[in-house]
């Protein structure tokens, strides 16, 4: 594709988030309402970068206890185990369930980490108004958004087991504090991804030729 990049923002046009009415508005003139439905108009998602940073930092902080704290306590009348995510993976690996171990490891450790790193990369590049590979970055963003919910797999398993396996002294499964932290990490990264406005990736290219 080639040609001059023309954006709505570049022409002082703004679409209402609620009723999608396009109206003429110069952000420099101050805040404005949609002439049809009265919603506040935003040229981009308001405070996108800042909110995304806030959520992302919170996710980073909680990622530590999510991996260090016990995520699931399983007790039966012969044994009692407390598992963190990593010890669970190790246990699965040692007991021969390699596939499941790999899946759990990827879904619960790698993906959240990659998500955090990806979002950080996007935010940093946007803040620096980087012009580096905008298409790939957009694709990365879409993947982050898409893959986000799958990290909740662990939480689903733990909550399902905790709800189902309650056989008194025979066997109990309890969710540990790590599960809460882990769930918070997943939710926070999802929210952060939602807060991120991918249009910001392209803003540095306004009024320029795009040749890739």
């Amino acid at each position, binding site marked *: 594709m080639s040609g001059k990049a023309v954006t709505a923002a570049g022409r*002082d046009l703004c679409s209402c988030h609620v009723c999608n009415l396009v109206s003429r508005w110069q952000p420099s003139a101050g*805040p404005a309402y949609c002439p049809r439905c009265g919603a506040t108009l935003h040229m981009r998602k308001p405070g996108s970068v800042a909110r995304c940073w*806030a959520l992302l930092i919170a996710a980073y902080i909680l990622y530590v206890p999510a991996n260090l704290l016990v995520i699931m306590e399983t007790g039966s009348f012969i044994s009692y185990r407390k598992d963190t995510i990593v010890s669970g993976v190790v246990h699965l690996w040692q007991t021969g369930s390699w596939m499941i171990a790999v899946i759990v490891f990827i879904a619960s450790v790698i993906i959240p980490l990659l998500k955090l790193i990806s979002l950080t990369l996007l935010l940093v590049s946007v803040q620096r108004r980087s012009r580096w590979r905008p298409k790939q970055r957009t694709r990365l963003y879409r993947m982050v958004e898409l893959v986000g919910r799958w990290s909740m797999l662990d939480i689903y398993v733990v909550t399902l087991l905790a709800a189902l396996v309650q056989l008194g002294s025979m066997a109990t499964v309890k969710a540990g504090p790590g599960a809460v932290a882990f769930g918070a990490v997943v939710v926070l990264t999802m929210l952060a991804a939602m807060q991120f406005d991918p249009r910001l990736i392209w803003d540095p290219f306004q009024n320029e030729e795009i040749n890739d």
Partner: protein
Amino acid sequence: MTDVSSTPESSEIPDAVSEPRRRFSVQLVWIIPIVAALIGLSIAVKSFMDRGQTITITFKTGEGLEAGKTKIKYKDVQIGEVKELAISSDRSHVVVTAEVSRDAWGLLVKDTRFWVVRARISGGNVTGLGTLLGGSYIGVDAGSSPEEEDSFTGLEAPPAVSMDVPGRQFVLHAADIGSLDAASPVFYRRMQVGQVISTELDPAGTGVTVRIFIRAPFDQYVKPSTTFWHASGIDLSLSASGVKLNTESMVSILLGGISFQTPEGLLKVAQAPLQAAFPLFATRDEATKHAEMVAPFVLVFRESVRGLAVGAQVDLRGVTVGEVTKIDVALDPQRTEFSVPVQVQFYPERLSTQLRNQALQGGPRPFRELLDTLVAHGFRAEIKSGSLLTGQLYIGLDFVAKAPPARIDWSSDPPRFPTVPGSMEQLQKSLMRIAKKIENLPLQELAGDAGKTIRSLEASLKSADQLLKGMDAKLVPEARAVLTEARQSLEDLRKTLAEARNTLGGANEVLSSEAPVQMDLRETLREVSRAAQSLRVLGDYLEQHPESLIRGKREDRK
């Protein structure tokens, strides 16, 4: 700004309604990372506060222990967890690194004991069955020392008694362990009142030390004069009153145990001190024999004590007042001479009942004074021979006339009692003389003669034997036949005799003077004699007148 407004569509786009600028001083979204940070911080602080004290415990084996899994439990409540298992640098034991939670730090003092709780059967009970399913754990018995400690040596077996049970420990010394083991029961009047805590060999290897624990309030019955004995086994005695079977409980028959008893009269005496040591006797009888005051002494002899055995009597005019407990040999370096220290035990109560009463009241004081007085008057110990045949020796106590002055050395341990050389040496000399005489006897020749005699005797015996055998083979059957015949003949003879007796009876009747036959016979005989007379007359006539036979009788010529 741009030429966008000139495009045709732009006229249809409405203008936004503008509004006065609002000020967003703080974005609320930043609360989220702050909260997250607070949570993270609180978790960090909590985990820092909760972090356990790391301790190391050494065990001989890591059996049943697993890093990250084995718990440490105090009174069955988890207080920590094993973090790491390692082999010690000299590979002799296992070093367990464990983390103990903060609230249990108070337990980590010097005398706290750790052991691995496994299923085990000992002392008549089964413990730790739960560990078969749930895995072993490390048990803790809290110590009371104020000194903190973080490296411990684990016990190989659970302590028999935990430290919070009231009671006291005592030490028993025995010659052998019998069937005792840790956790063997201790009985008082057949009531189980305590347990054996540990059994160990004395460092010198001369005996065993048994530590026992007696629960309160039973520990008050242990007095200085209490005797302990092995309660294991069955005491079967047969007497005129029948068979008597004496045992403790079944448990002690199977597993061994210890019983103790205090003499009746001594129950009011003050308790034995903590950790007091007592001898442990093999049987109840032996224990009751020793249930008296014992005074150890050492007697140093310079002569041979061959024949003196441990257990030999100490005798006072025929009454046993003690026994030998140990015989040593010591080299006197100055005199380059060997001496034989013989350790004995006196039962001074046997010396007199008066002394016993004094001992009950005043301790060893009067006993000492009495002995000192006796020794001053020549009371000495000497080795005496109990039996010339067996060479058994015993120790005799008596007053020795003209004994060199001596006194009891109370300062040595045990006190040294003065001795006099015994009559053994003279005895030995005379024995030697007898032996020499025996040696001088021409035993060789005598033996040779005796040998010859014996040989010829043997030959004679052999021939006699043969003879007898021959007789046996030949004569016996004949003899038997003869005997049978003889028996028959005898039978016949008996019959004949009976008949003869009958006949004789008849004859008797016939021959008696009043019998008619006799009378007739006599008459007949008279007739016969008259006939003979007339026959003689006839004869004479015929001689003179032979012609008369033919002519007949002639008339007388008148």
